[in-house]
């Protein structure tokens, strides 16, 4: 973990000693001992440390053409013009001050080289630009009077970002940014502060939650410990009393000891609350649990009459229909919980169901006989 985080701080852990062959070349220039400790460890920073520096087996320095196969320690860094170079080339070219990029001739400084995070340098560039823009253009929707204005502002920002990413009219774009910065310096600062305050509050809340959780766990552990001790001592007490043969029979001794202990515990619990905030919280939780009763869930609570008084289910029937299922010794047919008793019960229940229902035309009080009234032709 520590090793992985190092690039974020601009350090590289070098396992090889300075006498190593790969290093001796760069140490020929005595005033700088290593590139990696002097360059700014920028790139796309990820505070969680999950994103690591990008490198692949096929890395090859476009300047000196040395590759990973021959040079195990090869590390490519990215310039501010988004061209890759190996550390030794950077040392060679830029140690004596700003020099033009060997690829695009833009004047570069050694400190402006950053480690690579993404395989695609286009992404690297876009993210860097978007971060920069987001820092400056941080107006919020509350800063506008109409939605139209806010949307226009968003479009402007996107326009500028696009220009920067694709190098469209760089001078004009930079002037636009500068103009904006000048015009909105106060608001930008305010929004930055707001953002920071928000992040701080989030972090504090998180911290508080974590502390509370820890305290609760600690409390619980202590309580369990006490309970166990209590139990132990109770047992010991019973044994001692039995040894001393207080009273005549053992059962009454045990019962009396237990009762005394319960009383003691009750009195202790009665005194305890109010001691700490945690105890108060616990009491509140317990009260909540007491008010919301934990009743078992019963999915079907319809109260139907299931003709239970009309039949008595026999433990076994002579039934050729279900013989195959009952004789099935491996229980393959009964897989999934099939029970022949339930099939029997269903059959007998359906045999007595509605046995005494009057046919509709013979009902003494014709209620709801007119079923034909609501018949609709579904497709005429």
């Amino acid at each position: 973990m520590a090793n992985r985080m190092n690039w974020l701080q601009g350090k590289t852990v070098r396992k090889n000693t300075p006498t190593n062959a790969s290093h001796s070349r760069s140490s020929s220039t005595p005033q700088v001992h290593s590139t990696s400790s002097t360059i700014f460890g920028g790139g796309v920073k990820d505070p969680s440390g999950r994103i690591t520096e990008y490198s692949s087996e096929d890395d090859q320095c476009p300047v000196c053409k040395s590759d990973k196969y021959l040079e195990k320690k090869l590390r490519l860094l990215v310039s501010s013009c988004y061209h890759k170079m190996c550390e030794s080339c950077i040392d060679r070219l830029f140690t004596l001050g700003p020099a033009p990029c060997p690829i695009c001739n833009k004047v570069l400084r050694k400190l402006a080289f950053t480690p690579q995070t993404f395989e695609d340098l286009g992404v690297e560039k876009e993210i860097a630009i978007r971060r920069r823009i987001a820092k400056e253009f941080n107006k919020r929707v509350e800063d506008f009077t109409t939605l139209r204005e806010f949307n226009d502002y968003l479009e402007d920002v996107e326009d500028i970002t696009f220009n920067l990413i694709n190098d469209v009219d760089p001078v004009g774009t930079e002037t636009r940014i500068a103009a904006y910065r000048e015009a909105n310096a106060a608001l930008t600062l305010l929004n930055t502060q707001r953002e920071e305050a928000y992040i701080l509050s989030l972090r504090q809340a998180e911290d508080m939650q974590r502390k509370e959780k820890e305290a609760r766990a600690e409390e619980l552990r202590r309580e369990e410990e006490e309970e166990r001790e209590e139990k132990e001592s109770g047992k010991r007490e019973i044994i001692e009393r039995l040894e001393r043969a207080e009273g005549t029979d053992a059962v009454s001794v045990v019962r009396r000891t237990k009762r005394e202990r319960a009383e003691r515990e009750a009195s202790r619990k009665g005194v305890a609350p109010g001691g700490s905030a945690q105890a108060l919280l616990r009491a509140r939780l317990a009260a909540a649990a007491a008010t919301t009763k934990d009743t078992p869930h019963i999915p079907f609570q319809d109260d139907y009459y299931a003709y239970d008084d009309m039949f008595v289910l026999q433990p076994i029937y002579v039934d050729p229909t279900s013989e195959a299922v009952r004789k099935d010794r491996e229980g393959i047919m009964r897989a999934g919980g099939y029970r022949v008793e339930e099939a029997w019960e269903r059959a007998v229940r359906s045999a007595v169901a509605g046995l005494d229902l009057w046919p509709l035309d013979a009902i003494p009080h014709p209620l709801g006989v007119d079923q034909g009234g609501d018949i609709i032709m579904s497709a005429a």
Partner: protein
Amino acid sequence: MAASSKTPLYEASTQFKNWRYSPPSLAKVRASLNAAAVAVIRNTFEADEPGSSSAVSFLLPDEELLLVRLYASKIPQLCGFFRFPDEVEATAITYLKRFYLKNTVMDWHPKNVMLTALFLATKTTNNPISLEAYTNNIPKTSPSDVLDLEFLVAQSLGFEFAVWHAHRALWGIWLDLQAVPNAPPNGAASQSEIYDTALRHVRASRLSDAELIYTPSQIALASLSMASPELATEWAASKLPPASPSLSTLQDTMAVIRGLIEVAARPLDVEAVRGVDLRLKLCKNPEKVVGSKAYLAKKAEDERKTEEKRNRKAVEVQKAMTAGDPFGDDLGRLVDYDDDDDD
């Protein structure tokens, strides 16, 4: 005997609530469906070619029923071929009969409805079969014949797929007879013969209207009484208090059901049904015959309506676009500005 405060299970079923008729109400439903269908089809004929409907002889409700019965009697044959259990067979026949209490034969020919009802029944009774295996084994049938009607059938059934069947009640009676002290001893060869005979009667009852009028237990008991009157009387006496009005009503009911079963067990007059089928070809709802003038007209009408609807919607959208600023106007109405791109 039922506790008055609780609803008995059977009376809570959709079968009791929505599919229970009296003979007159059944006749009324069928007559009104037939009349409505005839009126619609006559109109279509007239719209197509004035005066052409006078020559057409439309089906009568009884003739429709005859055709439905013929196709209902095909279901057991298909079930025998596919080795489907009784449950599937009974459910499919029930679906077919219920379907024609909401639709008429002149709109939907029972041949395809029967196939769909059976396929639907295999699924609702947990005896599924793949559609390919099903249609490949029935000549001149394509998967679309079965699937096209499936939703219509399910809709006509009101999505009430659970059915209480008489054959289960008969099994229950048979089991429960073993708990009746005076019943003759079980297990003898003649006993199982009685059960088989009764089951045959239950199967015959499916072709009648009995299940739309009476409860499954009554039909099962009537079937048993046709096979062995003594056993049926014995069992009924053990279930209902002697000399109660319900016992005597049950006797009357059973007599009627026996009559229905006897009628249903008689073979159909195939020639008469064929005549009905031939006439059906002429008086079928032309809107449902693919390629006919009325079908095309109906299709054009439907298309015109959809087009109209689409246009109306487009106009509305256009109006909304021009009237208001697509990028929003007032911040007060703003809920979540991240969603703005969607509008």
